[in-house]
């Protein structure tokens, strides 16, 4: 029975192993991003939102503490900004939108729109 359980959990590991990216050439650190986004979108609740928010904050903290090994991927700051905006914290929202625009000039146009909307 134990053997069966081990083989089951091993195959589960292998299944998820396919999509667990090793350190990537782009250097972006994603943490649990896609999974926690999916779970929040699938079952929106204060808990799943908080989990996703923590995933975003963890990505930034990990990248910031990695001495340049990892970078924050596109969209993470912007998503945090949107979460703060939805909560009514406009000042925090604007701060995150500015971070996104500062790190990624490609986002400038969209972030300008969002900052105006927040202001």
């Amino acid at each position: 029975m134990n053997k069966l359980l081990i083989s089951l959990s091993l195959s589960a590991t292998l299944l998820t192993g396919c999509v667990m990216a090793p350190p990537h050439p782009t250097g972006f650190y994603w943490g649990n991003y896609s999974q926690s986004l999916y779970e929040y979108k699938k079952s929106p609740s204060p808990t799943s939102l908080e989990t996703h928010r923590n995933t975003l904050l963890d990505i930034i903290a990990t990248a910031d503490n990695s001495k340049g090994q990892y970078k924050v991927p596109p969209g993470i700051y912007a998503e945090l900004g949107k979460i703060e905006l939805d909560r009514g914290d406009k000042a925090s929202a604007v701060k995150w939108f500015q971070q996104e625009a500062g790190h990624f000039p490609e986002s400038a146009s969209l972030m300008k729109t969002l900052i105006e909307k927040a202001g």
Partner: protein
Amino acid sequence: MMPNMMKVALKNLALAAALTGTVLLTGCATTTPSVPITKQQVFPAVYGEKPASILVLPAINHSTAADAPLLYSASIAQPLTEQGYYVLPIPVTNTMLEQAGISDGAQLLAVPPQKFGQMIGADAILFVTIDSWDTSYYVMGGEVTVGLTFKLISTKTGERLWNFHNQVVINTGSNSQDPLVALIETAIKTAQQDYFPIAQQVNYGSVAVLPYGKFHPQTGVDATQNSSEKFNPPEE
């Protein structure tokens, strides 16, 4: 030393798993003899225009799986970014589109692509049609068939930059040689089938066909790499 060795071992395991994934992904393609052809020849518009930012539009769902668009939209940003592109934040842009009454990409087919450049600053927009998302089970196993058609359109010219159809059959049954173990494993996997890893796998496999974007160290360098005839844009 130990943690490093562990790291290497894990890396190798991940690589092996990734390779297995690749085999599974490509294994089901029809075996047309492939003519050596470079990526530049197959995707000249991507190399010519070098789009940096991509707006991912909501999926056009032609499958019977109602949750397929969410499976797609939650798992496309990561592979697309790792391929080297700035992906405009999908949870943000999808909400903006929803507020405008748009939840299905088909509603946007008639909108001039240039509009998305002017309004959102995207260099290109990515349409996807989910052609199929079918699960089939049989006594000793099961499989999921996923068919996706991607279309990347320039917001400068309105022209198609990249087009790719991917059909993947993923085995969701057991690989065990022991019939009893196989039966139990298949039953458990069937009951707990999580489609999200499948969506991730399909998106990674599809986007890997796209030439590298600006964030990838090999951007531009891959132009002379061999491509495969099966990556040619399908006829419309």
